[in-house]
């Protein structure tokens, strides 16, 4: 049993080493006394690590694989950057198209702001009906929007609400209803 275990440890050594010295190691095992066996096993285990890590030069393969992977990754990245750069140079309209897309996707305030001084206009006061609508929508009331529009249709627009703390002023709210295809909206101050 113990001899087979020792033979197995010898067998695990790199081929060149066990081919050259394996039989001699087993012969020494056979010649050794029982008291020396623990020393032999410890020595065989250390030898196994030493032969694989230091003598077999297998670590060179590990380092080689790591460096190769790094080179491949850097080559891939460089190639991607070079291709993207060539594509941009070969398509002058590319930038213009990208710019146009960006403008289209920008929010209204960002689109108009550069052309109008003082944009966006912040209302002095918000209509209490709009505030109530926001609260109902936030709380998950599904019918709030439809009821709001029905009510607006009944009373007519713009909505007129008395301003807080200003007896002579009113809050005027203009309404415009978009649909599913509406992506942005805005208004111009004339």
């Amino acid at each position, binding site marked *: 049993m113990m001899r087979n275990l020792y033979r197995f440890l010898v067998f695990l050594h790199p081929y060149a080493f066990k081919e050259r*010295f394996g039989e*001699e190691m087993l*012969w*020494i095992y056979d*010649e050794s006394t029982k008291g020396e066996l623990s020393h032999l096993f410890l020595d*065989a285990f*250390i*030898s196994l690590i030493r*032969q694989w890590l230091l003598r077999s030069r297998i670590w060179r393969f590990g380092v080689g694989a790591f460096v190769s992977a790094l080179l491949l990754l850097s080559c891939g990245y460089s190639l991607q950057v070079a291709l993207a750069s060539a594509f941009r140079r070969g398509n002058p309209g590319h930038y213009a198209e990208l710019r146009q897309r960006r403008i289209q996707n920008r929010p209204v305030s960002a689109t108009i702001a550069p052309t109008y001084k003082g944009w966006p206009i912040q209302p002095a006061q918000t209509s209490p009906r709009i505030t109530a609508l926001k609260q109902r929508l936030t709380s998950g009331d599904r019918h709030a929007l439809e009821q709001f529009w029905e009510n607006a249709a009944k009373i007519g627009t713009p909505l007129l609400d008395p301003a807080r703390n200003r007896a002579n002023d009113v809050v005027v709210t203009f309404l415009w209803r978009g649909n599913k295809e509406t992506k942005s909206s805005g208004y111009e101050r004339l």
Partner: protein
Amino acid sequence: MAHEELGNLLPLSPAALHILLSLAAEDLHGYGIMQEVERQSAGQYKLGPGTLYDNLDRLMQSGLVKEAHKASEKDDPRRRYYRLTAFGRRVLAADIERLKAVIRDARRHLPHREPSKSS
């Protein structure tokens, strides 16, 4: 095999020194080297087969040791003998000289004390 420069091989590792020293008197097989090393160091230094053959392999590659013919045909076929080469003997002598210089320095700088004997 081209021999390495003598200076490149010095100082020898303790294992290599003991192995070369054990082969200085006669050709020995692996187990004989292990026993001789244990005797030289009064049991303080024990070589295992893995360490022994790792060192023997490197000493043979450096041309300090070579495989010798078997002592007799009746020997166990697994038993191989090893011999110190002339170059190995020169390297061993050079390392012994180096050790002598170390010991001279040590004697000069350290007060001489008899090793204490355990009762």
